[in-house]
C-alpha cells in the first residue's frame, strides 16, 4: 500500500490506511465516511422496499400478499426516517465539514463521535434482525394498541432498534452543539458562521430536546410489548392517544430534523453558484432557529381525527401555520439571492434549485393539511404522503445529493463527471415529480394511505406514479456508478475548485488529518462573492479571482 501513497499528498484518507486505523479512527472526516457507508446501505434497503410498494401499486390487483405489503411500507418508513433521512446530512457532511467550517481541528469529543457510529450500526443490526425474522407491519408510527397487542411481527426488536438509534442521534448532536460553542477559530463569531453551521446547530438542538421523549415513549412501548403491562391499553387504564402525543412530540420535530440540514446545504450551494452573498443572512439564521423552536408546538396536527379536543385542534392548526413564516423567509431569501447573480448551472446548483421548487410545493401543501377542515378530508390519504415526500425526498434527498456533488472534490480530491451529474440531477427532478405529483391527485380523490389495493378508477394515476418511481430509482442509482468511477479516474481537484468562501476550501483537497497545521484566523463573514466578476474573499480574508 505504501507505494500507492507516494504520488498523493498525505491526507486524512491515505495516512495509515489499514482496516484497524479506519475502525478505531477518531478523525471526524473518516467517521463521516463510515457514516456514508452505513446510510447508503440502509438507503438502498429502504429504497428496495419503496420499489416493491410502487411495483405492487401499479395495478389494483397488486403483486404482494397484503401482509407482505404491510411489512414493506413499514420497513420503508422505519429505514428511511431513522436510518437514512435523520442521520443523512448531519452525520456525514456535518461530521466532515462542521469542524472545518468553524476552523477546528476536530469535533469536541472524537471518541463519542466514533461511538455514535458503532451505536448507529448496532441499532441497524437490531432492525435487520427484526426484518429477517419476519418483519413488522405496524407502519413506522407503531400506534398501540395494534403494535402492543395485535401485531404479530417483531415489534419489540424494531422499537428497540429505534430506541438505540436515538443514542446515536444524541451523541452526534451533543458533539455538534458543544463544538460550535467552544471550538470556533479566533474571529469566527456567531454571525460569521456559515448557514450550514447554523443549520447543524439548530438541528442539533431539536435532536437533543426531542429524541429523549421518543426514547421514553419507545421504552414504555417495549415494556408493554415485552412484559405485557397495560401502559397504553384502555382495558387496563392506559391511554393509546398518549402514545400518539409523545410519538409526535418527537416525530413532528423530526420532520424539521430532516429539513433543517438540507436548508443549510442549499444556502451554501445557492450563494456559491450564483456568485452572490446570501440575501438576508441574519433573517436566514433567525428563520432556522424559529423553525427549530416552533417545531415543538405543532405536534397534534397529526392527531386531528384521533379524537383530541376541538379547541386544542384549532390551536394546533393555527400554530402549524406559524411554521410557514420562517419557511417562507428562507424561500424568498434564496430566490432573491439568485437575483442579478451570475448563475452557474452545475449539478449541485441544479439540485439546489430543484430543492427550492419542491420544498415550496411541499411547504404550501403543508398549509393545506394544517387547515383543520381540509385535513379531515385528506387525513391519512396519499395527499399527505405526497406532501411529506415533497419535503423529505424532493427537499432533503435533493439537498443531500447537491451537497454530495459540491463537497465531493473536497472529500476525495477528485472531480465528478459534470455532464453525468447534470443528467442525474435533471432525472431526479423529473422522476420525482412524476412519482409524487399524481399522489396529490390520488389523495385528493380519496385514496387512503397504507391500503394494499384501490378502486380501478385510480389505476392510471398509480401507474404514472410507479413509472416515475422507476425513473427516480435510476436517478438515485446513477451517482453510485459515476462517483465510484471518479474515485479512480476523476480529474484531480485543487483546494477550491468552485471558488467558494468557506474555511473548508482553504485546506488542500483532500484535507490533511487535523485539517490545519495552524488554527486559521477568521477575518470576515461567509459568502463574500462579487457577482460582477465572480471574485470572492475566503473567510480567512484572502481575495481570489474567479477562474
Amino acid at each position: 500500500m505504501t507505494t500507492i501513497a507516494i504520488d498523493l499528498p498525505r491526507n486524512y484518507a491515505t495516512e495509515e490506511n489499514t482496516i484497524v486505523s479506519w475502525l478505531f479512527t477518531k478523525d471526524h472526516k473518516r467517521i463521516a465516511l463510515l457514516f456514508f457507508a452505513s446510510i447508503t446501505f440502509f438507503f438502498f434497503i429502504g429504497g428496495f422496499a419503496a420499489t416493491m410498494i410502487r411495483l405492487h401499486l401499479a395495478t389494483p390487483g397488486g403483486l404482494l400478499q397484503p401482509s407482505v405489503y404491510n411489512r414493506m411500507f413499514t420497513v420503508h418508513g422505519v429505514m428511511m426516517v431513522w436510518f437514512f433521512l435523520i442521520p443523512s446530512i448531519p452525520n456525514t457532511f456535518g461530521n466532515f465539514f462542521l469542524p472545518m467550517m468553524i476552523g477546528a481541528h476536530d469535533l469536541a469529543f472524537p471518541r463519542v463521535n466514533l461511538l455514535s457510529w458503532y451505536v448507529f450500526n448496532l441499532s441497524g443490526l437490531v432492525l435487520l434482525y427484526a426484518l429477517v425474522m419476519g418483519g413488522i407491519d405496524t407502519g413506522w408510527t407503531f400506534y398501540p394498541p395494534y403494535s402492543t397487542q395485535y401485531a404479530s411481527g417483531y415489534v419489540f426488536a424494531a422499537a428497540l432498534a429505534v430506541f438505540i438509534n436515538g443514542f446515536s442521534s444524541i451523541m452526534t448532536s451533543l458533539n455538534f452543539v458543544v463544538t460550535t460553542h467552544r471550538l470556533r477559530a479566533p474571529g469566527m463569531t456567531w454571525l460569521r458562521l456559515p448557514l450550514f453551521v447554523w443549520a447543524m446547530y439548530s438541528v442539533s438542538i431539536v435532536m437533543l430536546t426531542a429524541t429523549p421523549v421518543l426514547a421514553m415513549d419507545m421504552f414504555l412501548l417495549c415494556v408493554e410489548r415485552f412484559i405485557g403491562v397495560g401502559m397504553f391499553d384502555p382495558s387496563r387504564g392506559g391511554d393509546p392517544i398518549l402514545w400518539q402525543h409523545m410519538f409526535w412530540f418527537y416525530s413532528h420535530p423530526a420532520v424539521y430534523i430532516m429539513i433543517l440540514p438540507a436548508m443549510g446545504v442549499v444556502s451554501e450551494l445557492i450563494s456559491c453558484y450564483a456568485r452572490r452573498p446570501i440575501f438576508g443572512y441574519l433573517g436566514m439564521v433567525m428563520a432556522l432557529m424559529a423553525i427549530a423552536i416552533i417545531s415543538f408546538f405543532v405536534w397534534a396536527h397529526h392527531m386531528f381525527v384521533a379524537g383530541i379536543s376541538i379547541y386544542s385542534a384549532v390551536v394546533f392548526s393555527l400554530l402549524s401555520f406559524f411554521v410557514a413564516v420562517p419557511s417562507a423567509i428562507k424561500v424568498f431569501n434564496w430566490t432573491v439571492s439568485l437575483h442579478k447573480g451570475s448563475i452557474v448551472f452545475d449539478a449541485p446548483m441544479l439540485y439546489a434549485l430543484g430543492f427550492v421548487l419542491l420544498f415550496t410545493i411541499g411547504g404550501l401543501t403543508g398549509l393545506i393539511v394544517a387547515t383543520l377542515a381540509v385535513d379531515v378530508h385528506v387525513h391519512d390519504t396519499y395527499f399527505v404522503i405526497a406532501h411529506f415526500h415533497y419535503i423529505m425526498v424532493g427537499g432533503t434527498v435533493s439537498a443531500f445529493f447537491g451537497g454530495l456533488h459540491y463537497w465531493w472534490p473536497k472529500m476525495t480530491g477528485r472531480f465528478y463527471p459534470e455532464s453525468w451529474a447534470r443528467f442525474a440531477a435533471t432525472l431526479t427532478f423529473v422522476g420525482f415529480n412524476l412519482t409524487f405529483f399524481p399522489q396529490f391527485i390520488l389523495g385528493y380523490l380519496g385514496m387512503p394511505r397504507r391500503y394494499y389495493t384501490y378502486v380501478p378508477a385510480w389505476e392510471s394515476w398509480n401507474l404514472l406514479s410507479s413509472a416515475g418511481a422507476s425513473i427516480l430509482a435510476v436517478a438515485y442509482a446513477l451517482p453510485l456508478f459515476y462517483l465510484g468511477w471518479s474515485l479512480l479516474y476523476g480529474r484531480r481537484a485543487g483546494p477550491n475548485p468552485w471558488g467558494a468562501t468557506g474555511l473548508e476550501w482553504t485546506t488542500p483537497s483532500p484535507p490533511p488529518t487535523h485539517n490545519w497545521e495552524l488554527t486559521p484566523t477568521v477575518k470576515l463573514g461567509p459568502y463574500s462573492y462579487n457577482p460582477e466578476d465572480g471574485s470572492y474573499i475566503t473567510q480567512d480574508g484572502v481575495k481570489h479571482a474567479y477562474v
Partner: protein
Amino acid sequence: MPMSSRTISPEIQYADLSQQGDTAQLGMWVFITTETLFFGTLIFTYYIYRILYSHEFDVAARDAVLWCGSANIGILITSSLTMVLAINAAADGRRRAMIWWLIATAALGMCFLGIKGYEYNLDYNDKVVPVANFEMKPGEAPAGELFWVFYWVGTGLHAIHLTIGVGLVLYMLLWRIRRGEITPDYYAPLEVVGLYWSFVDTVWLFLFPSIYLVGRS
C-alpha cells in the same frame, strides 16, 4: 499510593487544558438536558395517569415502602455533598481527602442500591410486581397496576443511572487518580462525574415525593 503527577497535554482540537475542561463540562450539561427530558417525559406521563386515576393511584401508592425511600433520599443528598467535597479537595490539591470523599460517595451510592434491592424484595413479597407477581388490591382496579409499572420503570431506570455513577466514581479512583491524571490544574473529569452524580441525585428528588409522598396524608 505514591504521589505521582504527570504532565497532561490537551487533545489536538483544544488550545489548552482549560478549554478542554470547560468543553467537557458543557458536554455533560448538554447531556443532562437530554436526561432531564427523558425522565421528565416519564414523570409527566405518570402525573397524567395520576390525575386521571387519582383514587386508584392513592390506594396503590400506600403499599410503597416509605422508610426505604426516605432513608435513600437522605443517603443520596449526603452523597452529593461528599462528591462536592471531593471536587473541592481536588481543586486544593488535597489528594488524600479527595480519595476518601470519593470512597464515601461510592459507598453511599452502593448503600442506596442495597436498600433499593431490599425494598424490591419487600415489594415482591407484597405482590406488587406487575405481571410477574401481582395482586390487585381492593380499590385499585383497573389502573392500580399502572402505578407499579411507573414505580418499577422509574426506580429501575434511576438505579441503572446510579450504578453507572458508582462505576464512574470507581473509574476515577482506580484509573484516573491512580495514574495521576487528576491534578489541581486539571480536575475537569472529576467535575464532569460530579455533575452527573448530582443529576442522578436530583432525579430521586423528583421520584421520591411522586412515588412515596403524594396522597399519603
